[in-house]
């Protein structure tokens, strides 16, 4: 990488090359794993892309997976941008999903307002669930990384408990996959983009949200302030910014987007709440935010790429004997190789240190 830095002067090109090298290395190691399994990696990767983009059905399914990838990426990025680590998007997603499901089946509405109310309440629930770690961190200096991670478990188990004991129609099954709420009313289901496939209006919501956040980050006073807080909260506070209040707000908004993601998953795809339905969607958000360096437009691109890999991996697994876990390894290695050089993680950690040093040294209240 150092050699590349010396040769290539153009910053943008340099960035592009870095991404390319990181991805290439990931793909090579993925290929080795596929060979070890006795498959031709070229065939496997071909199947992956064909399965992700090769047909209308494939594309629809890719967009279905792109939606939560963009949203959880945005949710995490808001926190990262300001130096707050919300690793609890997964938990906020569960809470939002459960509330949306309850509203979806239990509250009688005749029309589309039903879906909108369910989305808003799900989103609000996610925000409220993020308020808890936000207060713990901003006010009582209890490490937000630890408490958001722990609250994820609370969310999994709490939603499972509520579903099993209060929502399930016949509470006999003990298998987690079968712990489900009743199905939501038709009025709460989201319109599909390419019927009959799962891609739904949630994709549009994700794109619009990314555009709005991009505008907020780069064009408004608040965006400027958030950006400065992320780099040096002491300076922002010196300039008259109420750093802790903005930090709390950012945390809550992050949680709201997490809750919204869950609500969209339920209303758009699953149509009922199921215990443990989210397979690490919230944690994918961390990787996506890192890869996109918290830029909302970058998150759209990375999110789409994520959708391709996620959907394509399933196709690859169907068509060859290669396991889809190989693709998860490629994804993780991509992030790892990229962060080795660009110091993204180092920058983020510096932001946290700045909070601990700057924001928490004095006594001003939220």
């Amino acid at each position, binding site marked *: 990488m150092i050699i590349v830095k010396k040769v290539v002067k153009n910053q943008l090109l340099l960035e592009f090359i870095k991404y390319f090298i990181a991805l290439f290395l990931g793909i090579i190691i993925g290929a080795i794993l596929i060979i070890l399994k006795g498959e031709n990696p070229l065939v496997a990767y071909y199947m992956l892309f064909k399965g992700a983009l090769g047909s209308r059905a494939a594309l629809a399914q890719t967009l279905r997976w792109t939606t939560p990838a963009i949203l959880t990426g945005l949710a995490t990025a808001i926190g990262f941008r300001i130096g707050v680590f919300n690793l609890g998007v997964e938990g906020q997603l569960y809470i939002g999903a459960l509330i949306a499901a309850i509203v979806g089946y239990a509250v009688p509405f005749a029309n589309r307002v039903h879906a909108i109310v369910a989305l808003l309440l799900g989103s609000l629930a996610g925000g409220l669930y993020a308020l808890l770690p936000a207060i713990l961190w901003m006010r009582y200096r209890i490490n937000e990384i630890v408490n958001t991670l722990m609250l994820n478990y609370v969310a999994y188990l709490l939603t499972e408990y509520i579903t099993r004991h209060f929502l399930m129609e016949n509470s006999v099954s003990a298998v987690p996959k079968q712990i489900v709420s009743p199905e939501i009313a038709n009025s709460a289901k989201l319109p599909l983009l390419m019927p009959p496939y799962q891609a739904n209006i949630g994709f549009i919501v994700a794109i619009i949200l990314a555009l709005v956040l991009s505008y907020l980050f780069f064009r408004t*006073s608040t965006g400027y302030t958030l950006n400065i807080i992320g780099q*040096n909260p002491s300076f*922002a506070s*010196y*300039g008259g*910014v*109420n750093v802790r209040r903005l930090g709390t707000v950012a945390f809550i908004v992050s949680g709201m987007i997490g809750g919204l993601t869950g609500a969209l998953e339920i209303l758009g795809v699953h149509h009922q709440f199921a215990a443990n339905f989210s397979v690490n969607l919230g944690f994918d958000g961390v990787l996506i935010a890192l890869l996109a360096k918290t830029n909302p437009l970058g998150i759209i691109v990375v999110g789409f790429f994520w959708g391709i890999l996620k959907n394509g991996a399933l196709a690859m697994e169907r068509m060859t004997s290669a396991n889809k876990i190989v693709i998860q390894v490629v994804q993780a290695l991509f992030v790892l190789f990229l962060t080795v050089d660009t110091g993204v993680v180092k920058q983020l950690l510096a932001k946290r240190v700045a909070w601990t040093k700057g924001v928490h040294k*004095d006594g*001003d209240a939220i």
Partner: protein
Amino acid sequence: MPGDIIFQAITKRFPGVLANDSISLTIRAKTVHAIVGENGAGKSTLMNILCGLLRPDSGEILIDHQYKSFNSPRDAVKAGIGMVHQEFMLARDLTVLDNLILGYEPGSYGLIKREEARKKLQKLSTAYGLSVPLDCKIGEIPVSFQQQVEILKVLYRGAEIIIFDEPTAVLTPQETRGLFTAIRELIEQNKTVIFISHKLKEVIAIADRISILRNGRVSGELPVEEATEQKLAELMVGRKNFLQAVPPVIKEERAPLLEIVNLRVTDQAKIVRINDLSFSIQAGEILGVAGVAGNGQSELVAAIIGWGVIDSGRILLNRIDITTSSVRQRRLKGMRYIPQDRSMIGSCLSAAVWENLIMGYEFKAPLARRGLLNFTEINNFSKKLIGRFKIKVASQDMPVQNLSGGNLQKTVIARELAENSTVLLAEDPTRGVDIAAAEFIHSQILQEAGKGSAVLLISQDLDELLSLSNRIIVLYDGRIIGESIAGEMTKEAIGLLMGGRCNGKDGVDK
């Protein structure tokens, strides 16, 4: 002479900067050789090369007529070179003894023979007339003693050549005299001392020979007999005219703009930091605050700008009670602040010049309308400030971490003085900036007072305080221990007050 240190054409280049440009210099053994120069002149680079922290790109160092090449600080220590750093390299929670032997512990099999070290250290400190309490923790002893610990540390490591990097920056005038006595004792005992400073008076007081660096080159060298402050200053900055700052004359009584009434602040450990402090500053007045760092200055500043929690008392800005106002509310009323820590508090190093300049103005017209940034206005705003404050930048999009200390400080001041202020707090506004920038900054502060602002100037630099202030108060232990109007107090008198009036009684048994 044996023991001489000879630098032969030392060159060291950093990205974009030629820090040392073929420096050749002979330092005679058993003398005090001062090296003076502005910040960025190359003093620190040269010394870091001598003590093994940096390697020169080209050039040689000879000690005792032998070529030396240091790969690490440890090599330099072995060659008898020790450095007393400006920022003390001490662990606050360890005892003096443990700090002294750290890294060079006597003993074997992982066991430390502390008693052996103690005997050796006691012998050393008697020999050099140093007195340090070996069993106190570093955090408990005053700064001047910490410095003695640093000196003892290099002696313990067997140093023959001792480098002092800006040693008086943290000391009162009395403590400085004590340091000079210690340095003379070192010379008596056949050590060689290299004294880095930009305080010309002190250099003339202690040095035998003086070398002046400018822009990475030796711009002059002379024995102390031929040196005058004027001459040294000329060689340092390369020009002859200096503006002597003159505090504004205030003829009539004016309205007080900043009033502090019975302020009391205790810190988290329940220690009283500000004790029943009252003063006021009227429009156009510059009030200087002298005092050794840690006597309540930072708590006072925090209380005034709205950062700290106060126990009791009131703060009035232009006769309006702002005791409970937020930082933003106070800034909107015209309070401005040039903080001591310009890189961590006063600026956002990784952000662009324009981003640094608009902080505090970013939410209101003309820079923003309805929360939306107006980039044309921002561009004009920062261009205007860069021009008005003569900030040297390649582009306003570059991060300020690439600016020199003086230009960074100008960026801070440009932002704070972009609009007329009601009250200006300036904390060590020229520390570590070169003479030309310092002069400019002083003129800006005087101008601001001239426009009718009330200025609170907190500084460790007594010359700065004396030349700018209408009135000076001395803080000691959170109280005003002395007050005087311009011209009525000498540096020595202030120094005595800074030490708590009774010289020598600073709470440590000798």
